[in-house]
């Protein structure tokens, strides 16, 4: 007989209620059709939750340099390394997969140990939604459902598919209702738009600032024509969008950011909120996880690691084991490395890797777009894995500590930040590789993302057609992809999925000069037709 337990889906911040049933042999997803937020509906990520629980590649024992070891030996090693590094040489990094209460516990531990380095390694641009603009309200479910004018920046539908149904209901509720989409790619979401503003990749903030200036004539310091030209859109189109979003019409503004598509994450976030403020509408930043930045910036931490100041690194979260090369090539300089993982790292990574329980196997407290949610464990802990508190116990005991929220930015600060970005804007030629975050692409389970989207005109230039292969060489890595000729991308732009680490490695890490934060923006690449299939795209090689 099977038992079903319900919890809140951990894979994005929509807060969907999902059920997991266990028949004594296998975990399967179930659907809570009476749930207020999602009515039983689940996106591909939510549907794959049960696959994670009993996946054959789950890690069930600690690994030391790729070899099996015991928890007792691992504990002794951690304590020994901690004594050798000292509190001043220890760095703690958290990334995707950590809930709010777990991050608070990490902050408490860092204070207790006195380590100077505590950073958020979640370098996805969506984390820049931590930047808030003063005077902008958070949208509620009712705001979305009753909206008559909506602005969506980026691919919100793919970031939170279940959140999109209320938007579509609102769009179709009345023929006068309007949906405006600002994006660099012609995604499926753009097919629903009444006004689609297609901008050059990475220039969304300029189009948004121009839109805000058209909505609020009192906004000074924004040259509408200049900003529209930088974004590659006509002023008339922005005026049509501004008319659809006029302040007296109830609605909301939603924004999403994707790795490899955003060049100015903080400005992108703040410019989206500036439009919301100018249009007098509430705002939601759609993202998969909400993690505070941490007292040490990730870029500063990378500098400290490169300078040899960090002797021991404790990394807990989803990105490290698979993103070793593209995240921190300087990591080789750290003598002792400890990471938590749910899956067996492939390829093996040096240092100590500790098996952690998956999201569905432990209780946690997390945020959602629509309020705070609590998650209950719905599956038994995987054999050999341990809970987060137990793993932290190897470093020391600490209580949860408060994490200070960032101070809201002023409109003047946003305009000044934009002026800096405009001054630094340079025209350049060549192929531009951008990223797409597909909901189906979670961890490569359903879509291994071995295709690259190429515009029909570019396909002619490259003399390739569907199912041919092209070799893409980026600043830090190269890989081969199968061509899919598509109208989603404009000429000169290529697009790959960024859910798998192999593709993400093509996008080098940069630094946002305005905030000093790490940026994963569009990459300049070289492309040529591969005469024969040059091997699976999974073989990304460092250049």
């Amino acid at each position, binding site marked *: 007989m099977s038992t079903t337990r319900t919890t809140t889906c951990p894979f994005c911040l929509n807060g969907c209620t999902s059920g997991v049933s266990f028949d004594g042999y296998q975990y*399967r*997803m179930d*659907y809570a*059709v009476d749930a207020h937020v*999602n009515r*039983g*509906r*689940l*996106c*591909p990520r*939510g*549907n*794959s939750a*049960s*696959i994670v629980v009993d996946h054959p590649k789950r890690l069930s024992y600690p690994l030391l340099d790729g070899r099996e070891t015991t928890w007792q030996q691992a504990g002794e090693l951690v304590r020994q390394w901690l004594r050798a590094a000292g509190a001043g040489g220890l760095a703690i990094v958290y990334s995707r997969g950590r809930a709010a209460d777990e991050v608070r516990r990490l902050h408490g531990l860092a204070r207790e140990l006195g380590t100077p380095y505590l950073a958020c390694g979640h370098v996805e641009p969506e984390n820049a939604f931590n930047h808030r603009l003063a005077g902008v309200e958070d949208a509620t479910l009712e705001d979305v459902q009753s909206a008559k004018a909506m602005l969506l920046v980026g691919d919100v*539908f*793919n970031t939170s*598919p*279940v959140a*999109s*149904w209320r938007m*579509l209901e609102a769009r*179709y509720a009345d023929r006068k209702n309007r949906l405006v989409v600002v994006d660099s790619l*012609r*995604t*499926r*979401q*753009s*097919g*629903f738009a009444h006004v689609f503003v297609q901008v050059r990749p990475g220039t969304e903030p300029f189009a948004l600032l121009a839109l805000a200036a058209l909505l609020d004539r009192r906004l000074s310091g924004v040259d509408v024509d200049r900003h529209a030209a930088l974004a590659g859109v006509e002023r008339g189109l922005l005026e049509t969008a501004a008319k659809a979003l006029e302040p007296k019409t109830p609605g909301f503004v939603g924004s999403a950011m994707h790795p490899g598509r955003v060049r100015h994450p903080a400005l992108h976030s703040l410019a989206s909120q500036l439009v919301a403020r100018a249009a007098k509408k509430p705002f939601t930043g759609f993202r998969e996880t909400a993690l505070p930045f941490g007292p040490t910036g990730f870029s500063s931490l990378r500098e400290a690691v490169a300078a040899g100041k960090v002797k021991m690194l404790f990394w807990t979260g989803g990105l490290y084991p698979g993103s070793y090369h593209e995240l921190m090539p300087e990591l080789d300089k750290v003598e002792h490395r400890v990471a938590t993982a749910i899956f067996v790292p492939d390829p093996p990574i040096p240092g100590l890797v500790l098996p952690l329980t998956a999201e569905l196997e432990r209780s946690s407290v997390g945020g959602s777009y629509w309020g705070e949610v609590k998650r209950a464990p719905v599956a038994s802990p995987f054999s050999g894995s341990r809970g987060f508190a137990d793993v932290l116990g190897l470093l020391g005991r600490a209580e949860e500590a408060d994490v200070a929220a960032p101070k809201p930015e002023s409109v003047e600060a946003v305009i000044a930040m934009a002026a800096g970005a405009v001054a630094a804007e340079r025209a350049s030629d060549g192929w531009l590789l951008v990223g797409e975050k597909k*909901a*189906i692409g979670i961890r490569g389970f*359903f*879509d291994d993302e071995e295709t690259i989207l190429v515009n029909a005109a570019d396909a002619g230039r490259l003399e390739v057609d569907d199912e041919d292969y092209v070799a893409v060489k980026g600043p830090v890595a190269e890989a081969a992809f199968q061509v899919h000729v*598509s*109208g*989603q991308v404009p000429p000169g732009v290529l697009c790959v999925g960024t859910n798998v680490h192999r593709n993400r490695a093509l996008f080098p890490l940069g630094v946002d000069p305005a905030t000093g934060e790490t940026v994963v923006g569009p990459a300049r690449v070289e492309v040529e037709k591969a005469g024969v299939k040059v091997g699976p795209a999974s073989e990304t090689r460092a250049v």
Partner: protein
Amino acid sequence: MAKRIVLRMDYCIGCRSCEAACRSRFKGEARIRYGEVGATVFLPLSCRHCEEPLCAAACPFDVIRKDKETGLVLRSSFHCVGCRSCALACPFGAIDTRLLRRASQKCSLCSDRTEGPRCVTSCPTGALQFVEVGEPGEPRVGVGYAARHANWRRP
């Protein structure tokens, strides 16, 4: 009256959640396929459980049969030899030519689940619906889709 999956094209966002739900349950089998129309339109293709199924007629081993009570066109995975005749015969392209565990993949409308197919329950926007055939309230499909695409507009 028999129930069937109906797609409201106006609401499909192409997230492929239907496919993920199907694969999660059937151990890697995606019994619902999808097709792309242009750059921005996406169509899930599920078995229509035809009145006179051509896949059943084409099957050389009578592995596919139409259930007289429920009207479902069901396949026995144990007896399927993977000859792909059903995939070639299906006029809607709803059966994939790729085999899994040496058998063709055929939708059974989640006959193991009383609440209806998983793809319908999990569809994030409610684009997939499980309705009685000929039901008066059957959704008008594709009205908005037609309105937002130049090919379908009157000049």
